[in-house]
């Protein structure tokens, strides 16, 4: 029994990070109606930039290094929109999708150019996990959980209490109407991309702290994030959160029954089945950012 509960615990923590990724992805989809493949690179770049700032010559302590890392990732995210997606917005959605695939491949290779394809780490010494009556949680895993909760809390306040948050939700509901009513599209755009990038970078750094860094780390998690987005219904922020948790738990529990090599298969299967049978998601939402 304790075997399954430990898996469940690992799943919840992994799910919290997937939720971060999924929320960013779903925000972009909710407002702009396209799936940004390059979101994967926002995750990887966040982590690698943190590595860069915490290594020589800059050598900031890690908790400080994350700040410029996240800021720069937001710059990357905003540039993606400004230079490439914005001009293409009037075109067909497929053009945007292909462009995002190309951009993702490009950014990933810039990463490989600079840091190589090898695994890298933050070089933290291994630390024993905390034990609670037979269950193990490491300090980093607790940090992941806490950070995810913090970020999501801030997002909730932003979306419900602030003016920009309300503008965002209005835009997601109806792009043209929001513009007519005077909601500033560039402003909403900037906020969405910043939020998506910040969340992606934060999640990427947490992931790298927990395991290692490698150029495909974003891509591997993008699919899971997308599965979570679909579960929750595209554009539904709370759905993405729950979706992320579900994927994390399902993945980890699956290891008890199938070979660990099939762990990723879970998210793929979820996506495939959902697209076929319930494209609106379990929480069946129609449109908009909720």
């Amino acid at each position, binding site marked *: 029994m304790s*075997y399954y509960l*430990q*898996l469940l615990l*690992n799943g919840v923590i992994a799910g919290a990070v997937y939720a971060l990724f999924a929320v960013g992805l779903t925000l972009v989809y909710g407002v702009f109606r396209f799936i940004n493949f390059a979101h994967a690179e926002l995750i990887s770049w966040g982590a690698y930039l943190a590595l860069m700032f915490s290594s020589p010559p800059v050598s900031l302590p890690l908790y400080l290094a994350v700040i410029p890392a996240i800021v720069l990732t937001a710059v990357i995210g905003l540039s993606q929109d400004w230079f490439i997606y914005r001009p293409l917005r009037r075109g067909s959605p497929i053009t945007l999708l292909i462009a995002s695939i190309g951009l993702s491949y490009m950014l990933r290779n810039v990463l490989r150019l600079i840091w*190589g*394809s*090898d*695994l890298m*780490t933050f070089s933290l*010494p*291994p*630390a*024993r*996990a905390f*034990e609670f009556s037979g269950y*193990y949680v*490491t300090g980093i895993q607790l940090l992941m959980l806490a950070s995810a909760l913090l970020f999501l809390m801030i997002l909730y306040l932003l979306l419900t209490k602030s003016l920009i948050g309300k503008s965002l939700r209005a835009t997601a509901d109806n792009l043209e109407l929001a513009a007519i009513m005077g909601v500033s599209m560039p402003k909403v755009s900037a906020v969405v991309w910043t939020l998506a990038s910040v969340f992606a970078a934060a999640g990427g750094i947490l992931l790298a702290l*927990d*395991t*290692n*860094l*490698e150029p495909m*780390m974003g891509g591997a998690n993008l699919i899971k994030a997308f599965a979570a987005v679909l579960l929750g219904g595209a554009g539904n922020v709370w759905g993405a959160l729950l979706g992320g948790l579900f994927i994390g738990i399902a993945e*980890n529990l699956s*290891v008890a029954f199938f*070979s*660990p*090599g099939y*762990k990723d298969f879970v998210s793929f299967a979820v996506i495939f089945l959902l697209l076929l049978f319930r494209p609106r998601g379990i929480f069946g939402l129609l449109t908009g950012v909720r």
Partner: protein
Amino acid sequence: MMCVFLLCTGPLSAAEVKVGSNTPLSGKLSVYGEGFQQAMLLALEEVNAGGGIKGRPMQIVFEDNNSTAAGAVSAIQKLITVDKLPLIFGPAASSNFLAVCPIAQQNKTVLIAAESAAAEISKCGSFVFRVFPSDALQGIGVAELTQSLKYDQVVLTYINNDWGVGLAEIFKKKFTAAGGKILDEFAHDEGKTDYRSEVLRIRKSNPKAVVNLTYIKEGATVLKQAYENGLKVQWLMGSASKSPKLVELAGEAAEGVIGTYPTFSQETPQYKAFKAAWDKKYPDKKIPVFGEYNYDMVKLTAKALGMAKSMDPDDLRQAMIDAGKGYMGVTGDKTFDENGDVGAVYGRWTVKQQEIQDFK
């Protein structure tokens, strides 16, 4: 540009004797590939300083295989079809090597390995040789180590590629034949960043010892995550994990690991000469893993090329066999058996006080 390039190829048209090298200069094995290249170049320099091959300088044409099997196939095709080289130093990883064996055998190109250990390679064919011992021997070594430490029930995990799968098979056979019991066994994938599911699975069987046959990065990650999750077992590993990098990546978690590796004495005159030459050419660099094998490979090849009656495939092949008889390289006796394999003695290593030491 391409035409000019093509005019210059062909081992007999120029004054040099050329051989090819299918090397991981980029990709995930590039950090080792660099070391192999350095060792090969050191040997090459010595060969040419000593008069080359019957007065002609020897040259190695390096072709990058990107550390992948597809890359290795592409590289060997270029070396065979464009450069028309009759002898090639094969790619590093066993899987990559196995991918190109059939091509070399079909084209009657002599293919030599300095790092590939998979037992499968013994079946590659008459044109394939290696100066590195087959894992058929190491599997026995690991089983003996496990038994000598009185562990008769272990969990077995191994990296999911030719090297790991082959070595695990041999270990299993020997271990169970001697009465050992394998509580659980499973493969783990290469290059993953998270092996916690695997660690949990190991814990489920509650073993005292785990035989973990894997590479350096994967090994370090498993050790680290096991340590973090409070899994306390005796880790028994193979030669592929024996590296200071393992300790660097895993830190405290690597303490106490015991493993096997093919040893060679560091007291022989050959080794001492090699070390002196290395320190002279590369003063700031440590001898890379497999460096000695690469060096021996080039030196032995030079001897064979000098002995060969001609550059015909069969003559070259025979020369390789003849050159190996009783050849004492840096890494020991390089006599080839009927499969093109060499013998080995297996020693034991351990990690003590964050350093790799011999285990007594």
